[in-house]
């Protein structure tokens, strides 16, 4: 059996793979099968609409040309495109989207990530990430204004001098106040991340002295 063709093909090849798939994949699938998956339209919330509306007034020309009116449907479409930009440009290779229960993550970023936060179309495939060169982004929405993000995507060093993040001038028509369709969509997507939560800390204000007290 251990050296026969059938044994290797069916026990090792198919059998062990199936057993691992059962325990590592089917178990979580069954556990979460009752959690509904939300569409992009369903995850648009008031806070995001506030940002989306603000975006339409800040860049009126570009917004009308690439998105149109600041409606919920258009916002959902912008989220879908923004997520594709996030994947296509490889943002997820340097930014994670999950706050861990360890390493003081929740002090810096906010509430620890939970399963329901990922049950939507925009987490297909899920954007947990495996590396943090830059900070976690799952509580980024509303943290900074959309104009900050525009400048930051155009040339990160303008607002964050030590940042090794690449520049993305191709998300703009020549200047940081001229985002194109992809640029507007990416800003919308980033403003969405975490907007489903009530609050999270402003970690930029963390300093060593304050933290001393909490230890």
């Amino acid at each position, binding site marked *: 059996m251990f*050296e*026969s*063709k059938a044994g*290797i*093909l069916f*026990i*090792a*090849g*198919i059998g*062990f*793979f199936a*057993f*691992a*798939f059962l325990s*590592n*994949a089917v*178990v*979580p699938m069954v*556990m*979460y099968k009752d959690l509904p998956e939300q569409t992009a339209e369903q995850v648009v919330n008031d806070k995001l609409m506030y940002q989306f509306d603000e975006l339409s007034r800040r860049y009126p020309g570009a917004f009308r040309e690439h998105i149109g009116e600041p409606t919920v449907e258009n916002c959902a479409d912008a989220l*879908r*495109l923004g997520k*594709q930009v996030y994947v296509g*440009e*490889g943002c997820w*290779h*340097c930014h*994670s989207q*999950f706050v*861990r*229960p*360890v*390493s003081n993550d929740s002090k810096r970023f906010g509430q620890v*990530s*939970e399963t329901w936060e*990922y*049950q*939507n179309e925009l987490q*297909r*495939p*899920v*954007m*947990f990430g*495996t*590396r*943090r*060169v830059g*900070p976690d982004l799952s509580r980024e929405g509303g943290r900074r204004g959309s104009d900050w993000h525009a400048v930051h995507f155009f040339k990160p060093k303008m607002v964050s001098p*030590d*940042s*090794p993040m*690449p520049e993305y001038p*191709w998300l703009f028509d020549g200047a940081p106040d001229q985002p*194109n*369709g*992809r640029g507007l*969509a990416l800003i919308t997507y980033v403003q969405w991340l975490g907007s489903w939560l009530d609050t999270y800390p402003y970690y*930029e204000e963390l300093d*060593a002295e304050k*933290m001393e007290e909490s230890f």
Partner: protein
Amino acid sequence: MSSETVAETLPRHADLVEERLVRWYFLAAISYMLISMLGGILMALQLIHWNPLTSWEIFSAGRWRMVHTNAIAYGFLANAFLGTLHWVVPRLTLQKVASVKLSYFIFAAWQLIVLGTAAGIIIGPTLQDQEWIASLARNWHMEMSLGAQGLEWGETPFWVDPIALLGLALVAINFLTPIAKAKGPMYVTLWYYMAAFVWTFLTYAMGNFLPQYALTGTSAGAVGGLFIHDLVGLFVTPLGWGLMYYIVPIILQKPIWSHGLSLVGFWGLAFFYPLQGIHHFLYTPIPMFLQYGAIISTIAVEFVVATVVINFMGTLWGDGRKVVTNLPIRWFYTGMIFYFITCFQCALQVTLTFQKLIHFTDWVVGHAHLVMFGVFSMWIFGTMTFLFPRLLGREWYSRKLCEIHFWCSAVGVFIMFLDLGLAGVFQGFYWSSLQPWDVSVDGSQPFWITRLFAGLTMFVGFLCFLYNLHMTYRGEQRASSTAAVPATA
């Protein structure tokens, strides 16, 4: 039967092995290694603020980081392994592949798959806001992105995936046919190869389709982790060890030390390796009991790895001098030492204690480089060093350049491993001590600069290899080639 009559009745090597195809596969693999290394250098330059191509869309560092990993997995490793399969399988089974025409078709198709992946990753995102793509997505419920898919190691665009899966099925048919026809007991190598054909197909299907079309959120994360893991463990690892079990005894001219241990190694790997996927996402919302299971099987596989390494050390016993004198053997055994180090590291870093500190840091990047380059790429370079003189009918142009290739690769990757591991510890402590984020980035600079030079060392070694190969091509052909020799080994 005397040995002469055996030699007469055996099929000749030239009738079994399509050497031209092996050569083509190796050359394709080498080209993608060059591309991958350039991508890695670009990303390394980006991190230390030296990127000279910073505002050029098609040289976007983020996109080239994905080209870097995909070119290694599907360009370099897959092509090189397919080349070795075309050499090893017919010689071990004394049967030809199912169809040589099919072999050539697979070769062409696989290059299209790799180039399609690279083109998709580089050009795809530029086209994302085109109206025709949006309407395709709306009316046909298709993925909007022609570019990368959001799966680590599975960034192959969604439109490449079905073709790649078909290609893997054809590879399996092409090589399982001679294995099925072979008579008598199967040698260890063929166990690994058989299992690898099944596993690679299943892994690719699972990882590229389920999280995209069937699953969301946390369960998709579990499958994604399983995919990252199985791609290394069930595609690269069995093809790599299968190759070692074949080629090391041939060069040392003696059988493998213990048949029993090779059984333990194979079945232990087959059982424990696929169970570990979730260890890539510890402390996520994936249920804790599943995380514990993945951790325990990861530690278990370390013992299995020890048996395999012991078996190969036992085989070397008495011939230790060959590590110095025989270049391919040195490549292989250095790779095995690195393999033992990465696996030992794995058993430690997979624990929750380590994960607190090193998850999300460069520690993991260092680990990945030692596995993919320090082990499997080094085994392939060793195999190429051994086979190119036979494939070309020429001796290496320069033994010295071969030596430089070895030393630059081995030293470069080991420095990179140490450097990034240390960087990871620093980054982990910067984060947990709640320093401002910039501190962790600035504090990484010395490590990232060291990493660039470690990478350049590996690159210089590779350039020496390219030059050496070029000069060997131009050199005098040997009078006798292996073509007429019976395929006894």
